[in-house]
């Protein structure tokens, strides 16, 4: 490949963008959530067109979050690796299905990994084990040294997010965590918590709305 061709090639990589600098001392790239979201959307568009470099960048940006979610649900690093692999193949094949109007790419990628992990649990009929695990301990510990959110939002925001979740009313938080991390159906959550289904749904709704209100404008 000629040097010229390589130069054109690398211009596609955002980290290497050659912006003119006003001065030469310690110009750091500003942290900008909107910019990150736009970048994710752009990456998924490129991935849909078969761009492997974009795919690699998307992997670097979100694999830790996705792996953390899968590892938490499956409680098995080996299986979490399989899930991560399957999910990224799914992203490679279905990137065009991502709709930025329906949320952030990070949330989308996380739910894909979550769904794969839950499918795996259901396929292997380990639900009882998982339900026990989910009941025995909350998915999100009251104190956590470092969460996957740190890779997305940095230390301070991750801490804020964690506080917002652990400060939800216990019954709302419990219902939400069981729904997201355990793979139990609504009926099963209702039975497990010995609470009417309607109440469970209402708790989930109220809890998520509360969390959304706390986090909007911050994330």
């Amino acid at each position, binding site marked *: 490949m000629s040097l010229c061709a390589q130069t054109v090639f690398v211009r596609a990589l955002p980290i*290497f963008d050659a912006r003119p600098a006003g001065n030469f001392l310690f110009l750091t790239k500003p942290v900008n959530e909107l910019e990150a979201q736009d970048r994710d959307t752009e990456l998924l568009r490129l991935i849909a067109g078969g761009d*492997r470099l974009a795919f690699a960048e998307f992997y670097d940006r979100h694999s830790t979050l996705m792996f953390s979610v899968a590892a938490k649900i499956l409680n098995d690093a080996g299986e979490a690796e399989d899930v991560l692999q399957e999910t990224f193949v799914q992203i490679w094949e279905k990137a065009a299905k991502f709709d930025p109007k329906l949320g952030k790419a990070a949330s989308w990628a996380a*739910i894909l990994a979550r769904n794969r992990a839950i499918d795996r649990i259901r396929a292997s009929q380990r639900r009882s084990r998982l339900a026990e695990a989910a009941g025995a301990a909350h998915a999100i510990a009251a104190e956590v040294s470092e969460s996957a959110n740190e890779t997305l939002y940095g230390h301070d925001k991750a801490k804020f997010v964690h506080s917002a979740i652990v400060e939800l009313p216990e019954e709302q938080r419990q219902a939400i965590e069981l729904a997201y991390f355990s793979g139990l159906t*609504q009926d099963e959550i209702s039975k497990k918590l010995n609470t009417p289904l309607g109440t469970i749904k209402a708790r989930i*709704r109220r809890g998520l709305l509360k969390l959304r209100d706390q986090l909007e404008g911050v*994330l």
Partner: protein
Amino acid sequence: MIDERMEEQAALHVLGVLSDTEAYEFKKAMKADPELQACVARLSVATGALAGSVPIAEPPLRLRAKILAQVAPVQKTISLPERKSGFSLWLPWSLTTGLALLCVLFFAQDSRLRQTISEQEKQINNLNSLAQSLSAATNNLQQTVLALQETNQIGNLRIAMLNSMLTDLPKAVAVGLWDKDQQRGVFVVQNLRPLPADRDYQLWVIDPKYPTPVSAGVFQVDVQGNVRIQFKTDKLIESANRFAVTEEPKGGLPTPTLKNLVLIGG
């Protein structure tokens, strides 16, 4: 206006706990209702945050290469010409012995053709493997090219690759470029851990002319652990033999704290 029931369905949808039927109905409703789409988008902020609140777990490094290899462009398969089901369909058995011999000749050619195709397929496989193994090297090359692009000067450039000294952050990597003529450089970092507000990363240039490393200033990385900076040093650098990054108190120190060495390379 979205009613409470639809809001409830939206909450269950973003958590992934709607039944198949409910999910189908909900998606249908969402397609036709921009307000419901916006509601889902806002709730997904909460589920995204929820997902990220689990303890961090890093996937093994080898998995990245494995996954990238898996999505390599699909190897084109060469379809073989369809074989006739039998001589009787196209070769009446009343044909002369000469035609039969011709048929044998065709079969021989077919066999050779198959062998050639098989060899070509093997070659394609080998080339694909080679392309994958070169991808890492290509990344480095891209960084080098950037350096040339940045300075537009090939001579007097010192290019160094820095590797992580942190066992828990093996993916951290950086490239330092130093232009001796202009006495300034470019430093690109990836995958470092963002630091708290009272700490900074400090860049050092190691020049044998000086007894201690020369400070090239402090920097922070973004939430992804990446940054691109341009830097100068207080002292004249004659030979930028190596670069190093340490973690220091806010504002940096005159000499590096070696036990906090994060990246080094030359």
